């Protein structure tokens, strides 16, 4: 499919928009992958292990769902900036910095939704697995399998949070475009802020439509996986 024909733009704009979509997807998908890999075990531990500070952790996770993205961006930038504690890593204004801040935003969402999904798995189901010879790890895997629909929802919610946020990546990424007109740290959302500020509402709307389409496609894939898994 020729994106240029769809959005009615010349080759240069098409290249610009394509690079923006690529950066958006790379950053948000990586952040969601990291958040999922951390969030599901965290949800299992929080749900089924008794340890000091468990309730505090639950509170932090639920509060985390409401972290203002600009504040997260600001804190991450302070940590990563040249004079900050992690300044030597030279990550400020890079896609990696954006992945870090979006991970911080998506992790609580994915963990909290996964937590309620795994808590909804009946104790008798977990007991049954253990009682026919499963190890603790087998029981955890079975619990994830039983909670699969809730976990898919969790991942989709986390992706929605990441792909649609603008505050933190604007601050830590810097909304940078290479001199050849392709995106370095500019995403669909940060590009829209630029277009709107400069009065190019039409381009802004096209980018907005693409953003919506991306979210739609990802959710459709999620729904398809859910339907297939229900057997």
């Amino acid at each position: 499919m020729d994106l240029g024909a769809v959005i009615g733009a010349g080759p240069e704009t098409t290249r610009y928009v394509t690079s923006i979509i690529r950066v958006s997807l790379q950053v948000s998908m990586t952040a969601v992958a990291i958040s999922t890999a951390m969030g599901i075990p965290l949800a299992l531990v929080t749900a089924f292990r008794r340890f000091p500070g468990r309730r505090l952790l639950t509170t932090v996770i639920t509060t985390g769902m409401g972290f203002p993205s600009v504040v997260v961006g600001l804190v991450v930038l302070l940590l990563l900036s040249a004079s900050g504690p992690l300044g030597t890593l030279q990550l400020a204004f890079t896609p990696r910095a954006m992945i870090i801040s979006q991970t911080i935003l998506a992790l609580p969402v994915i963990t909290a939704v996964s937590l309620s999904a795994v808590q909804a798995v009946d104790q008798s189901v977990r007991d049954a697995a253990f009682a026919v010879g499963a190890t603790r790890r087998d029981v955890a895997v079975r619990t994830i399998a039983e909670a699969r629909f809730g976990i898919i929802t969790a991942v989709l919610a986390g992706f929605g949070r990441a792909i649609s946020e603008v505050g933190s990546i604007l601050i830590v990424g810097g909304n940078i475009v290479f001199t050849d007109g392709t995106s370095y740290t500019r995403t669909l959302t940060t590009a829209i802020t630029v277009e709107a500020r400069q009065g190019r509402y039409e381009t802004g709307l096209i980018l907005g439509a693409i953003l919506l389409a991306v979210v739609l496609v990802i959710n459709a894939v999620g729904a398809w996986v859910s339907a297939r898994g229900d057997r």
Partner: protein
Amino acid sequence: MRITVEDVRLTRGEATVLDGVDLTVEAGAVTAIVGPSGVGKTTLLRAIAGFAPPAAGAIRYDGADLWAVEERQRLQLRRTVAMVPQDRSLFNTTVARNVAYGLGVRGGPLERLRMAVGGVQATDALAQQVTDALALVQLAGMGGRAARTLSAGEAQRVAIARAIATDPAMLLMDEPTSNLDPQTTAVIEEAILAAVRRGMGVIIATHDIHQAGRIADRVAVMIGDTIIEEGSATTVLEDAASPAARRFLAGELPL
């Protein structure tokens, strides 16, 4: 196989839920643990199945103390015993995959992968074991059904097939027929007796003393967090020694 429960004490928080329980169970027979609701029958079955270590006392499988051995060896010991929980406990997948689960977790990584991809048809041996277990509970040909579409009675029979498929030396069942119709109850009791004929030992926890009378060889009466009387089914059910056991068996409220 012989399971011995030696002076087991179990606590939950501040409360004592099992207090000085002694019991010996042999394979090849049905032992019924009877008693009113809430006396710890489920807790005792869970303790026997190795869910959690007792606060005091020992659970022995053929002499080996379950909680004195290393984790790996405990897993091997645990895998000679299977338990069917009271509540609906099936996994949200097909009947066949439910029945094959216990066999699946015993396989190596390669076998697990083959099963994840190919299901229970992954090997002929696995498919045969699933078929046999389903036939035992009279659900032959139901392997392809989704577990969540089953009636309560069918679900309970699948749960039993899932446990029996692992070929345990001892099968533990918590109220296996509570809230089920008489026909399903008969099918399940027949499956229990068939398993025993093959040499399996069965422990059922039940508040139904009539069921104990129908299928049990031995009966243990549990009242007040401990077993107060244990013996052959005929002796205990017809001529219990302790007054508390007699009152319970006569249908009076225990004191």
